[in-house]
């Protein structure tokens, strides 16, 4: 199963990744982080096909999908 890596230093919580994921593998996390951002979180990573769209469309180089 693929795993989601979020670099909390870079992520600004725009949640584009959550929206564009064709498999709906991501979701917005519940709380806000120290900078006031809502970060993306795993919804159901078994659906992830590692298409790379979230990595490609992230404006802040903050997300990576790996095993």
């Amino acid at each position, binding site marked *: 199963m693929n795993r989601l890596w979020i670099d909390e230093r870079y992520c600004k919580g*725009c949640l584009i990744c959550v929206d564009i994921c064709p498999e709906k593998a991501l979701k917005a996390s519940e709380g806000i982080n120290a900078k006031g951002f809502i970060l993306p979180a795993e919804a159901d990573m078994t659906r992830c096909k590692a298409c790379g769209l979230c990595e490609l469309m*992230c404006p802040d180089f903050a997300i990576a999908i790996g095993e």
Partner: protein
Amino acid sequence: MLKYLKAEGLMGSRLPTILCPGCGGGQVLNYTLQAVDRLIAKDDIRKEDFLFISGVGCSSRITSHYLNFDSAWTIHGRALAVATGALLANPAFRVIVFTGDGDLAAIGGNHFIHACRRNINVTILCMNNGLYGMTGGQLAPTTEKGVVTTTTPYGNPEKSFDLCKLSETAGAPYVARWTTAHPRQIVRSVMKGIRKKGTAFIEVLSQCPVHKKMSPVAMLKMLKENTIPIGNQSQSGEGKIPVGEFLDIEMPEWNDSYENIVKAARKEDCGLHE
């Protein structure tokens, strides 16, 4: 693409970028680095041949000092002039200019049309968000008629520029328009543009969620809905902005043409050195 970023400078971290959450600019940088990465892997282009040049504005900050490439963050509107200079000194550069609609079409308009006319070997990525983001959402030459901005409180009385038509008329051999919601198309276009000997102009309609007061996700959806690929017959293009490759031809590049001038000058005796 983190390997291409100056994540850790000598004095500490340079990332995250200063761009606002969900800014289209960061996405365009991501797409571009993807294209660059593929070119380094596939083509015979060295990493050190790439040169990122920008002017001033949000779009210009994107490549300002975050990259593990040679880059220049210069004067408002003058990125293409600086790029011209770099190419005069070393024609081997693959110059990528990150610019915005204000930087390129207003203050830098003159350099823009003349760079296209000369056909210097640059790939221009123009992030068009229809306003001036860095100064707080003022009117840009690409703002549509009637739109309210901080300097057109009663609506914009002027027509807007079509940058693709402008660059095509000025003589650029490669012209394309996409939106930030077209990631794979942009990667392909940037690769084409960099391989193109001459000026490649790629306009990217880009979201400014802050000044448009919308969520990035909603803006991306809107961009996709408001555009229509050229040649698409299945749906009505009424009121929609065409996207796609408008032009892809071959034309002599400036430095190649100038080599002939050097040859001609070497033959002719100017009379000064007898």
